[in-house]
């Protein structure tokens, strides 16, 4: 399967994929059917999302209520706000890219190693 075909095939559904932020190994996101969950840096988050082809919308995310250092908490807030603003998704075998409505890249994730 060529790269374009692979991208098209995988973008059909995020379900079952698990990703780690390319900037921070503690930030991750996992997709299960319509459910999204992961770690925002300090707290676990979870919620629901809708995806149709390359379009995505993430509903308001719930989080646990731990505290970490102030710097981590601010980064966590930005991570969650950015995730909730994602409108487009691109994905290949190794990378997930979330973009805003204007097509600007918001976040990049690497696929979590399997095994």
């Amino acid at each position, binding site marked *: 399967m060529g790269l374009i075909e692979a991208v098209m095939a995988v973008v059909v559904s995020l379900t079952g994929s698990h990703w780690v932020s390319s900037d921070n190994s503690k930030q991750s996101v996992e997709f299960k059917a319509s459910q999204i969950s992961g770690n925002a840096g300090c707290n676990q988050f979870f919620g629901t999302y809708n995806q149709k082809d390359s379009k995505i919308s993430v509903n308001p995310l719930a989080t646990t209520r731990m505290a970490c250092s102030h710097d981590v908490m601010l980064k966590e*807030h930005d991570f969650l706000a950015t995730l909730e603003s994602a409108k487009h998704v691109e994905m290949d075998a190794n990378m997930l890219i979330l973009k805003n409505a204007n097509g600007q890249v918001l976040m990049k994730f690497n696929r979590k190693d399997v095994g």
Partner: protein
Amino acid sequence: MTAHGFKTLLVGACALTLLAGGLAAHAASTTDTDMIVNGKPADANKWPWQIRIFYNDQDAKGGCGGSLISRQWVLTAAHCVVFEDNGEKQFVDRAIIGYGGNNLDQLTRVNTAQIIPHADYDPSTHANDIALIKLAEPVEFGTGTAAVDLSTPELFNSLVGTKATVTGWGYTYDIDKFKRSNPGVDVDESVLAPNELQEVDVPIQPLEKCRANYADLGGIPVPDGQLCAGLKVGGKDSCQGDSGGPLVSRDPTSSKGYRQVGVVSWGIGCAEAKLFGVYTRTDFYLDWIKSTISNN
């Protein structure tokens, strides 16, 4: 998050200093409705079971709450002791428990001997979000230190609609609300995280209503074994830093006057209208608590 991670992160926290002027300026620039805890400092010795989980010696504002349920056991949330790093579950195997006071800097500290999250804890739904911590040595009960009695199913069934109290050292403002209300103003930790234990009253809500409210947001499930507490209009809630801490209700049959009915678990933001705080029910896990303590 691993203990190493916490140590790294907390260097920054320890470097922050309290700026009284900044605190006053920030407090003045927000409105009452922005105060998500909207509680008050707790009276001395009023909540003698309240503890703080520190993840290392340098820990300051990071961490979780919990409650003494006997001289050697602490009840908290599973998510306080199970983290995710690089997409993998990590289990906290040791921590330090601070107890015996309201000021974070003046708590007596004791090491942990064993940390036991519920085996069926699910980080993607927060089902079974409960854990027990065995202390390395029993604490001495006395002024400011005591165990809380736990709720029973019979008591829980009578509590919907009644007032409960949640306590903790968690954030008094939601970061998101703070930023929206104070554009351009730096979010100062001294504004968010109190040194003195706080308390706030919140009514226990019908589970069906809570589930319906969260279902409106795309269908976030509220698992069996959890309860919801808060105000329809929002404004009072637990928040980041309160996880694992106790939600208690008055009960004249307890010698302490209260029983712990919940453990702080999760929410969407803090103190948002209709989005009540979600707590793990202690009565639902009484058998697990008893058997875990008995077997360890």
